[in-house]
């Protein structure tokens, strides 16, 4: 990132190198994993295997837990889908976005409007595809502007996007429902699903569960696609655009269009996330897409470990569960009134964010991977020494 000609100070230079150090662990360790003998050599096959494994795990998880947990899983899923796209953009391509919540709004409103028709709406899969496409187009427009901006300038522009989009829903309240939003008719579970679940677990599959399955399926599919993309030639080019700008340009890579492409892919994920949010929350309203949503997504990917899909998932889990734990801690352990406990939850949550960054600066996944790498290196050293 030599182009950000900050006064050649150490902070500037250090922050430029930083994303690469933070993600280095991620890159290195999966490369290492690819070398292990018991996993297939082909990236695609390996990812397919992981996908199948995760699908089985997801079914076990959804069938083994209560309905309230199912609902939480759906919520984690839509945050995680958006966070996955964002970690590709920020971790892999080095572009910051404080406006992904606004892109989720685009996907959510598209979904809500397409479900809100007289008669039968289109199949959900089609609607989601349209939502993804529409958001990708918006992402392309934003991306063209974003490709020319860097660091805080990009942060400022995307933050303005996060503030601007909810306002549009008020201005065009006739179509977009204004402050009270659009009610979303959540799709009913089809018969085969109800019967299937009954055969599987002896319980009737209900609405919440159906939505959870949809959300998790979207999560798995999007992560599968993102993972393959990140390991492909395209992913490598993005990393080159991030780390070795001049070299990449010399090699004939057009920096601008690759940055725009990263934004489009990441926006597409946000669009899908918005679609899932719409059916899970059963409402799209501007209050759901305030700037705090965008900031939460960024928090999730950094806490989880920048550039890692697993990190994005982990961060999203914390995003949903941490505030709840913090509140229950205030309610039950500190024996506070509900209002006080809610304020205290914010204090606890905020301090936890700070503490994570101070003590695990590479994020949860990054820190664990770094520790593993270090151990492996130490073992290799001692082995080399012994032999």
């Amino acid at each position, binding site marked *: 990132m030599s*182009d*950000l*000609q900050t*006064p*050649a*100070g*150490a*902070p500037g230079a250090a*922050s*430029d190198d*930083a*994303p690469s*150090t*933070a993600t280095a662990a991620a890159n290195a360790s999966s490369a290492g994993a690819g070398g292990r003998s018991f996993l297939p050599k082909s990236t695609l096959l390996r990812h397919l295997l992981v996908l199948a494994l995760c699908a089985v795990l997801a079914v076990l998880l959804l069938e083994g837990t209560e309905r309230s947990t199912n609902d939480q899983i759906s919520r984690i899923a839509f945050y995680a889908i958006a966070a996955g796209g964002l970690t590709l953009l*920020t971790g892999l391509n080095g572009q*910051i976005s404080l406006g992904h919540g606004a892109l989720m709004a685009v996907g959510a409103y598209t979904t809500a409007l397409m479900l809100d028709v007289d008669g039968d709406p289109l199949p959900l899969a089609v609607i989601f595809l349209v939502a993804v496409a529409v958001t990708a187009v918006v992402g392309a427009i934003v991306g063209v*502007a974003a490709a*020319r*901006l*860097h*660091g*805080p*300038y990009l*942060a*400022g*522009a995307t*933050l*303005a*996007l*996060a*503030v*601007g*989009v*909810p*306002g*549009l829903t008020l*201005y065009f309240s006739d179509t977009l429902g204004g402050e009270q939003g659009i009610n979303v008719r959540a799709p009913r579970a089809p018969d085969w699903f109800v019967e299937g679940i009954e055969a599987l677990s002896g319980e009737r599959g209900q609405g919440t569960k159906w939505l959870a399955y949809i959300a998790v399926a979207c999560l798995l599919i999007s992560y599968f696609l993102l993972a393959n993309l990140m390991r492909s030639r395209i992913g490598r080019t993005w990393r080159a655009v991030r780390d070795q700008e001049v070299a990449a340009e010399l090699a004939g890579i057009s920096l*601008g269009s690759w940055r725009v492409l990263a934004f489009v892919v990441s926006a597409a994920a946000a669009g899908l996330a918005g679609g899932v949010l719409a059916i899970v929350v059963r409402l799209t309203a501007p209050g759901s897409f305030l700037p705090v949503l965008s*900031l939460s997504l*960024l*928090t999730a990917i*950094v806490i989880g470990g*920048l550039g890692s899909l697993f990190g994005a998932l982990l961060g999203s889990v914390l995003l949903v569960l941490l505030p709840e734990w913090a509140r229950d801690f205030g309610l039950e352990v500190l024996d506070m009134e509900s*209002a*006080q406990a809610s*304020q*205290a*939850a*914010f*204090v606890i*949550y*905020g*301090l*936890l*964010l*700070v503490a*994570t*960054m*101070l003590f695990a*600066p590479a994020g949860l996944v990054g820190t664990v991977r770094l520790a593993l790498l270090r151990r492996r290196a130490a073992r290799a050293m001692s082995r080399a020494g012994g032999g």
Partner: protein
Amino acid sequence: MEEFLSLTLGGVVNGSVYAAFALALVLIWRSTRIVNFAQGSMAAATTFIAVAVIDSGQSYWVGLIVALLAGLVMGALIERVIIRPVEGGPELNAVIVTLGLFIAIQGAVALFAGVNQRAFVPPFSNIGYEVREGFTLLSLSPNTIWTVAAVVVTMLLLIALFRFTRLGLAMRASAFGQEVARLLGVRVGRMLTLGWALAAAVGALAGLLIAGDVSFISPTFMDQLIVFGFVAAVLGGLDSPIGAVVGGLLLGLALNYVRGYLDDSLLGMASLVILVIVLLVRPGGLFSTTPARRA
């Protein structure tokens, strides 16, 4: 014409409020290359400290001084204890730290001061001057003059500090190149702390000016300012105090025309459009000292 005039004056007042906030962001950016998202809730905290002082029977001015001092201490403490470990680390980590601080401080203010709004009486009357029979200029009052003047004077003082004093020179040197500054005998760490302390004090001033402008404060009263202040700072180029003020005024004017001729709900979109237009012409902001990015 009259409407245009009052919208313009209102824009200048709002703009100087954004500028005050942007100045604080610029100071921190200059010293540590961090965008401080906690600025808003830090300023809310110092404002509530000032309110407590004023409530105890002291004058506004005593409250102002206490708030500025509280800002200095808070800024220095936060830099030394929390920011120092992430300085020079990944850029985003610092962002997340300031976001965490933002959330925690806002929660703490609400815990101590309660969530309810309370009145904040400005030091001077904010009743507009009557220009002619039946036409009062809302934004031309003793208090708005104080607000604009305070911001301009703060900007001038900061420029003077950086241009004409050894301390300012040392701060600039630390911001410009830590290694070189260190070689020249500048105690860089101390300068960074000072940068944060100064920024938090300017933020405290901004908080009180904004409180006087909006009349009612609650722990979240600075939330909107974070966005507009940040946009103003970015418009100005993040590096320059003049840029912050010009950016603030430009944004204030533009948003007030949108408010007057279009609709409140378009303010966010309008700030995005202005920002994109300016940044597409000058990717480093209006007063950037760094060369513009290659296309």
